[in-house]
């Protein structure tokens, strides 16, 4: 195995197109190193993208915030603008593993692992996040929910890598939240995760919403029916009860060492209700 650490996107693209399938992109490495160690993956080349300066920054663009693929979850939590605009996304990133893990892990890596239980992904999907994918053929922007294809597999083509995630600005009264269920208080993989982002009008009526569930299907799933149940309501108990019901019905989980299908189905609804309530409260606090 070879270790390469290019300092420009151009060099990174060149390395990737030369190596195609034999190259793994190394961002935080908190999942990749475990897979390497256990022999689950044996790449010819490991390409570390953390020396590429523009991937290591959070930048303000005219219509939103761009989080570079090498930005650690800890750095996200320390970024005032990002934390104010997307507290749910930042909380989700801050739930990935321990303090130590958050010092290395990135949301781009979390997304590209394509785990159905990835903590940041439901929050990013709810936030309408857009992934920027680069390759020798140029740049393309892809909705975050289209990146994972199945457990462990992404929709990225050979020679492509994810350079950043863009979080588009939302109307004034928008709030987001992420909750997950784990057996302990920290350190576990989500048994169920839920991200919600919603906007309210001046009267407190929901004008738009996005709800995404993690760990209840092969990929993180968007639940538009649940979002529709909120639109036009003041996000009251009646509407939240509908969200709960719809989200439980939308869950298609499996039984594994982390939880039973029955448990996940039930908790998906509970979490969706609780998460939507927090998101609505956050939206309501904004002017």
């Amino acid at each position, binding site marked *: 195995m070879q270790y390469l650490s290019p300092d420009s996107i151009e060099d990174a693209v060149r390395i990737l197109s030369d190596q195609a399938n034999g190259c793994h992109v190394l961002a935080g490495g908190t999942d990749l190193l475990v897979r390497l160690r256990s022999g689950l993956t044996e790449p010819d080349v490991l390409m570390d993208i953390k020396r590429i300066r523009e991937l290591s920054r959070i930048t303000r663009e005219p219509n939103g915030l761009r989080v570079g693929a090498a930005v650690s979850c800890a750095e996200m939590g320390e970024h005032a603008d990002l934390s104010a605009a997307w507290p749910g996304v930042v909380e989700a990133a801050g739930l990935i593993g321990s303090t130590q893990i958050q010092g290395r892990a990135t949301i781009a890596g979390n997304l590209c692992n394509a785990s159905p239980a990835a903590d940041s992904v439901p929050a990013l999907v709810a936030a309408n996040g857009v992934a920027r994918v680069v390759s020798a053929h140029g740049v393309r922007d892809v909705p975050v929910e289209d990146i994972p294809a199945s457990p462990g597999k992404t929709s990225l083509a050979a020679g492509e890598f994810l350079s950043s995630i863009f979080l588009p600005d939302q109307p004034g009264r928008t709030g987001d939240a992420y909750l997950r269920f784990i*057996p*302990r*208080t*920290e350190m*576990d*993989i989500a048994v169920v995760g839920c991200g919600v982002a919603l906007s309210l009008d001046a009267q407190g009526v929901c004008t738009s919403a996005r709800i995404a569930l993690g760990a209840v299907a092969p990929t993180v799933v968007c639940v538009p029916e649940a979002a529709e149940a909120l639109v036009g309501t003041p996000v009251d108990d009646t509407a939240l009860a509908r969200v709960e019901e719809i989200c439980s019905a939308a869950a298609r989980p499996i039984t594994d*060492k982390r939880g*039973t299908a029955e*448990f996940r189905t*039930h908790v998906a609804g509970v979490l969706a209700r609780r998460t939507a309530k927090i998101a609505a409260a956050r939206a309501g606090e904004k002017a």
Partner: protein
Amino acid sequence: MALDSDSDIKQFKIVGTRPPRPDGIDKVTGRARFGADVTAPGMLIGLVLRSPHAHARILGIDTSEAEAMDGVHAVVTRADFAEIEDDDYTADILDNCMAGEKALYDGHAVAAIAASSGAIARKALKRIRVEYEPLPHVTDVDAAMQPDAPVLHQERANETVPPDMGGNVMARYEFGHGDIEAGLNKADRVLERTYRTEATHQGYIEPHACLAQVGPDGQADLWCCTQGQYMVRDTCAAMLGLKQGQLRVTASEIGGGFGGKTTVFLEPLALVLSRKSGRPVKMVMSRAEVLRASGPTSSTSIDVRMGMTKDGRITSAFAELRYQGGAYPGSPVEFGAMSAFAPYELENVKTIGWDVVANRPKQAAYRAPGAPMAAFAVESAIDELARGFGLDPLDVRLKNAAREGTRASHGVTYMAIGLEATVHTAKNHPHWSAPLGPNQGRGVACGFWFNFGGNTCVSLNITPDGTVNVLEGNPDIGGSRASMSMMAAEELGIPYDKVRTVIADTASLGLNDVTDGSRVTFAVGLATIEAARAAKREMCKRAAMVWGIEEDAVMWEDGAARPAGPNAGEYPPMSLAEIAAIASNTGGPIAGHHEVNAEGAGVSFATHMVDAEVDPETGAAKILRYTVFQDAGKAVHPDFVEGQFQGGAVQGIGWALNEEYVYGEDGTLQNAGFLDYRVPVASDLPMIDTVILEIPNPGHPYGVRGVGETSIVPPLAAVANAISAAAGVRMDTIPMSPPRVLLALRSG
């Protein structure tokens, strides 16, 4: 204060204080050397090939391709070990370390390699070809007892097992007295319930590690993390066909054991690899190997039948306990059956224990082995009956409490014991009357552990400048160097910092039993005190010589020899340092030693109290408050006593809530890592309050009992009783993971 009649000490000056531990600086600076921290010149790295099957016949192993690789220096299989004919116990350990005809569980070692680097060894492992014939497997204890269950061993049951039992039942135990049926007839209510507990792992943070070197002359050295270097020596010598005196084992610092390091796994493999390669061999387990192939606990299934009158008297108590101990005989069901009802004075009591084998790793001791599961069943049943009658669960325990003179169900009659004191103290503690909020519940439970004594040697050397070295043969797993130094200093009447205690290798002292059964502070402490007394006698003799008076006219007091009375003559006291300085002129160096198979260990009891809150929508339980009340006998170093109480309680909380071995349909372990084998993390817990009670053990010069193990016995039941109260449904299965609690809530 408790002091035996041989003591010249009027009041403890050091015992009962909290001095810093002598190994503290090494351990906070990273200097302390643990199992994996040593190297040797020319060292090879050893790795193990493990069975991917839960149960399979090994038809053949082809190592030739691996052996031919550059950098590979030795490949070993079972054929490289001495077969053990006359000792089933050690033969089973050998078979567990390296499979013979069959692989009996997922992770069972089938071959090992030593190579010049870890990378080469990893590659070489993949070149060993093992031909397996997979066999049907069974991992559940109740399933393993079914008549049609796959059988692991032919004809291994002992004479206690009736012939109609399934082929996986290895032994039957029975304890008790009285007439169960007659007692049940006197009860106002009879409760019958089956309780289940899953297997857990000790979860020591330091994986097993060792470094072995065997010379062509058969002289061998082994460095390893273990709870008993003498056990390692004797077991490995048998497996290699070495004499015990040829193998010197040095215990490294040990990164946790809790019973899990009371046997061998890698050590014999490293020795055989070293012998075959002629090079030092280092082996370190990965965490996955630790979970798959060291010694977790039994999983259990326990039926309880208990009768109680409406005023809380237990009229009859019966338990049938089924423990699978992994692939070999020797589950701790005997301890379970002995300890189940040990806290109570019962007229009619009986326990039956079944030792069962299944396709899981051979269980190893885990802190009070066998007792927490039995206590979970019994203490849950008492709680359910007490609450059913609207009685205070602590009053019910007091009403039935064992005391001095009680004949326990396992046949012994207690001397002075502390159970009632722990329950009384719990009842008067502010925790018991603190208000609870919605979805919160409070649980209590009692627990018992025997405490051990055993073979022990201590040597105590007085240096010429009057400082003292104590040599003891049990690894310091949680502050025992401090405790021994304290007891030696107390007995000699010198300051604590004048004593340094070191852990001996196997060539430096006679036999010391493994660090288990909470025996060290008791037995090694006893031997340390006796060794100090021997040194004092010698020092009195030297003083008598200098003064020209009779030996028995000299006494020891406050660190100095003094004339025993006015008739002995008037001489100024001669201090330990003064006597040491002239030792060469009075007969030579001064030392004391003591060798004993210690008896007189005092049983100990605890009562635990816990508040839990249950989220009714998810089944998640949170521990809000926890208090341990335990009889320690004399607490030599109260900080470490509290630490043992807290550590045991939290391990019990982990067992109660989220720790479990999860096996798949294929019999392979699904959660072989700290990600999914969920030990408690700091944010899961409140502070763990402790109340130390000191009811002296009459069998120890200072009144010491063991403290390490009793603390894990009550928590499973205490937490279950709290969660059952909070949730309004009785939890009878451990762990009470959120899916289980939610299921109980929604169906109950």
